[in-house]
């Protein structure tokens, strides 16, 4: 099963990447217990910052961004994690989905996650990420994971692990239920629609 992990962390090391890694580990172990093999690939958004902005401003999609789009399109499921900025996802994270070609996320199982300075931003998952992925016709996993700075401290680390495991269990079940994803070929779909129209005038 191909999993693509999209992380929008801006620093190195990044707590956003850390959460993404922990989610991947948990989902992988759930899937492997069920006899699936997992093939992960990462799309880190920070190095794509300039290409994403170029695509926004001039419509120019360079090779590195094309490669990232293909990695997303080829996945059976996505794990996406963004830092929370000003009560929402980061602009870079949103911009990546703004330039991602239409239809790539249709019927894509997605596990959403976010990181932030305090737990007061927890609802960013429900009022920013979930609506956007619903709009893009993805299948958003029911439990999402928010990690605040305090979660990474030793006192409360256990609670975070519990949330990760619970979300991973949901998502693994969703992935298995959905099975391998039919790869959409937008070009072929467009051509098929055109053939129908041309049939009308021939």
């Amino acid at each position: 099963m191909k999993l693509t992990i999209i992380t929008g962390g801006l620093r190195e090391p990044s707590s956003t990447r850390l959460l993404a890694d922990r989610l991947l580990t948990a989902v992988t172990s759930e899937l492997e217990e069920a006899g699936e093999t997992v093939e992960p690939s990462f799309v880190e958004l920070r190095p794509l910052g300039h290409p994403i902005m170029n695509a926004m401003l001039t419509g120019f999609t360079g090779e590195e961004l094309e490669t990232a789009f293909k990695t997303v399109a080829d996945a059976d499921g996505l794990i996406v994690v963004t830092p929370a900025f000003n009560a929402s996802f980061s602009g870079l994270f949103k911009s990546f989905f703004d330039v991602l070609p239409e239809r790539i996320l249709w019927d894509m199982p997605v596990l959403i996650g976010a990181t932030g300075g305090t737990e007061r931003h927890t609802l960013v998952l429900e009022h920013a990420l979930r609506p956007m992925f619903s709009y893009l016709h993805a299948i958003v996993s029911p439990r999402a994971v928010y990690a605040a700075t305090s979660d990474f401290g030793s006192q409360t680390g256990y609670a975070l692990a519990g949330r990760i495991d619970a979300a991973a269990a949901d998502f693994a079940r969703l992935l298995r239920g959905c099975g391998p994803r039919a790869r959409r070929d937008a070009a072929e779909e467009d051509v098929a629609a055109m053939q129908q129209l041309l049939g009308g005038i021939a």
Partner: protein
Amino acid sequence: MQFGIFTVGDVTTDPTTGHTPTEAERIRATVAIARKAEEAGLDVFATGEHHNPPFVPSSPTTLLAYIAAQTKRIILSTSTTLITTNDPVKIAEDFSVLQHLSGGRTDIMLGRGNTGPVYPWFGQDIRDAIPLTVEHYGLLRRLWREETVDWEGKLRTSLQGFTLAPRPLDDVPPFVWHASIRTPEVAELAAYFGDGFFANHIFWPASHTRSMVELYRRRFAHYGHGTPEQAIVGLGGQVFMRRNSQDAVSEFRPYFDNAPVYGHGPSLEDFTASTPLTVGSPAEVIEKTLSFRDYVGDYQRQLFLMDHAGLPLRTVLEQLELLGEEVVPVLRKEFAVGRPADVPAAPTHASLLRARRSDSTPQSTGNDQENPEPR
């Protein structure tokens, strides 16, 4: 193989001098550029169609007719004519007249146009863009091919017993290219009718252009027009040259950095590395242009964008001289090497007329020379 230039007709401030040409200056410069293209030995001059500032070519056939009167040999085309918002009857009329005036030195490139506001200006709805393309083009083909047309569609009033006047020159419709940057439907449309497919290549990596052209070639063969290799392919491109590569880069950089289409995006270096843009010596332009064949196969038409981004007329004319003297002669020779005999040349009025005659009774009226003079 045909070589030529295509203009967008943008009025852009020269970032090195602050000079903004007037609309009149820009239009007259376009005519000078077209004349120079012929003088430099190029085969095609093509103009875009735009209906909003800062662009000037809102009436391509008016412009092309004026150029036709001042030239003898060069093929006059569009890049593109909007098949969605122009009425197909008017397109047929305009291009028939242009064919007669230019002695058949006319073809047409069709596109949808991509600015939303232009649709309502011409009484159309952008949501119908693809159905309009199909319906209008279906009608246009019939107007050019049938003496009396009864037609009924969904998006235009019906026609009863309509006859196009004037009929196309020698009853040979202009050759049609369908242009697309990223729309696979257009490749399918071109393939369905066995028309040319023009990939306007200029902002896209080779992999993208390759897949669009492959789709068109495959579907061209599927519809029984010939082998995939015999499909008629055109490519866009853009270059800026000086004898010394570094001079080209330093002179072009301010234009690139401030151009409405490229500016404030990728660097000149990144853009040249991953798109057809070449900024350098004539030898570099030759090398890169020849490499296009590696990913689209042997093709029929190469057009370069030369007069954009605020470049002054004098510079554009110098570019055309270099293109005509040093680049195109080498490209003609090199593109001919290894080109299979059954890969056709780009259709012209003369070749279409010959094909038409060999289909019916063979006879000569003596006007099917390769490069007809205006009559």
